[in-house]
């Protein structure tokens, strides 16, 4: 699997005071399903925003297909176009991401920006609406949509640009089970179609369902471990240490007992 994203000793701090990620090195292969997991505040979203060139590392290097991505590199027109065409970002908060007057405008915005013709952009928007089952929302303003509908439109607005890498920040957060299931199926289909998926999440069942490679971040904003999902999710001591599972007490009739609890059911046959 050819390497598409590589981070070398990457660090970032907010306002020069609050560390967000610290000395992260990792690589993502082309077509991989890759999950960045960690407790709240470990720097998952920050790492994804750096991978999308929205904010820039204070230390270290980031390479996309062997090209260094930096503030300076993205000032160059050709490289910006090359990068934005290939890397799409779905924000955790869809309200922030959706800024056009209607759903159709949202789906057209990206393709038109990267120079896709009007006719093809319309075709792409129609196809995306069909796949995401949002044809009926075409003329609605985004603020009049439900949470699940907004998430579909947010994903659609990125898909219509046909990126080869999709960065998804907490994609299933706050969605009902049916929409979550729909999104998992969509992500698997996109992965089968050859897209590289990088997901930031603390939803361990999602990681398990996608059977993703995992980078585990510690609460000290460092990379604790990388590896296949079964290695990471199977290591309960590790998950306990990074605060992704916890021990709790509960009762069976009169008897109370204590055990580890992760809030996700492993899928077993």
């Amino acid at each position, binding site marked *: 699997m050819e390497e598409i994203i590589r981070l070398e000793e990457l660090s970032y701090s*907010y*306002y020069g*005071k*609050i560390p967000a990620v610290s000395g992260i090195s990792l690589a993502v292969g082309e077509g991989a399903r890759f999950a960045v997991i960690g407790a709240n505040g470990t720097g998952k979203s920050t790492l994804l*925003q750096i991978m*999308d060139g*929205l*904010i820039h590392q204070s230390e270290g290097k980031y390479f996309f*297909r062997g*090209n260094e991505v930096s503030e300076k590199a*993205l*000032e*160059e*027109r*050709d*490289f*910006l*176009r*090359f990068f*934005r*065409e*290939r890397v*799409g*970002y779905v*924000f955790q*908060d869809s*309200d*922030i*991401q959706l*800024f056009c*007057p209607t759903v159709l405008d949202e789906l057209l*915005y*990206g393709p038109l*920006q*990267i*120079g896709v013709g009007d006719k*093809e952009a319309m*075709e*792409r928007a129609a*196809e*995306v609406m*069909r*796949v995401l089952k949002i044809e009926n929302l075409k003329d609605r303003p985004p*603020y009049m949509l439900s949470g699940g509908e907004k998430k579909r439109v947010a994903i659609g*607005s*990125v*898909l219509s*640009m*046909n990126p*080869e890498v999709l960065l998804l920040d907490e994609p299933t957060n706050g969605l009902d089970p049916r929409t979550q299931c729909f999104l998992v*199926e*969509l992500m*698997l*289909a*996109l992965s*089968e*179609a*050859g*897209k590289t998926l990088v997901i930031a999440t603390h939803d361990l069942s999602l990681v398990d369902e996608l059977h993703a490679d995992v980078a585990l971040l510690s609460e000290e904003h460092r990379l604790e471990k990388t590896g296949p999902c079964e290695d990471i999710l199977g290591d309960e001591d590790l998950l306990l240490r990074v605060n992704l599972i916890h021990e709790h007490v509960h009762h069976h009739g009169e008897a109370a007992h204590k055990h580890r609890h992760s809030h996700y059911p492993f899928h077993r046959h």
Partner: protein
Amino acid sequence: MANKVPAFLLEKHSPARPPGGRGKMRIPFIERGIHNLASVVKTGYVQWETSSADRFFQATDARVKVLFLLFYVVIVSLKRDLLPEVLIGVFVFVLVLASRLNVFNFYKRVLFFAFLFGFLVTLPAAFNVVTGGEVIFPLYHFSAPFNFWIYPIPAEIGITREGLYSVAMVTSRMANSLALSFFVLLTTPFPEIIRALKVLRVPDALLMVIALAYKYIFVFAKTVEDMHLAKKSRLAGGISDEGARRWIAGRIAVIFRKSRLRSEEAYKAMLARGFSGDVRIHGERKLLGRDWATGIAFLAAGLLFLWI
């Protein structure tokens, strides 16, 4: 699902980077301005919230600091000569150094606002058309004086000594008032200021407005910055000035709507936790010896400036 993926999503991009040559991106001024402003607001907010308490003046009680600010702003407004204004400016500079604030950043803000609201606003007063007196920098000469509407225009237009002095006075007053305000604000965590204002009998309704507005500034700056990032993530080329202005006009409407909804929710959250119109504070501490000493020292220095 796999066979439902649209055909265009199966198209592959070339992995090779284009050779380049179309030059660099030009980011419209209005775009840069919004991003930088949001960033400055957020950074300032975080610095304020985390202002350290172990240095001179940071450790002083907020009530003493608020009284110091009010007393000195009154002194600055009462003085009629440049010398005491300059001396007060030097006094604040020494305090800034003693409190180990970032001197460059501090005076960058003070001078920017003093230039904008002091110097530029009063600049017309420097001309003899507005302020009569001895012309020291003649600029233009008409053949004879004449009347323009209700204004008499002299034959020689120029800058007068009296006009220049009044511009210098207003600018220095503005700079000193700003320096005093920024100094107190940057050395006092915001909740302490609210507590001090409450003790000084500032009405609760005003305190609520200040406290909520302060919190909202951060939320607002973060929303603006996030929206800017969301657009940036889907922007693969340049954007014209007109396009940037149109986008920003649209965002203002969205932010206004969001702000209204958020204010309603915040108010409901306050009601749900028992808010009934009164601001109640906790942990009112007694003034320590060092607070009294600092207060008396500032009072003495203030009286000296009044006397000069």
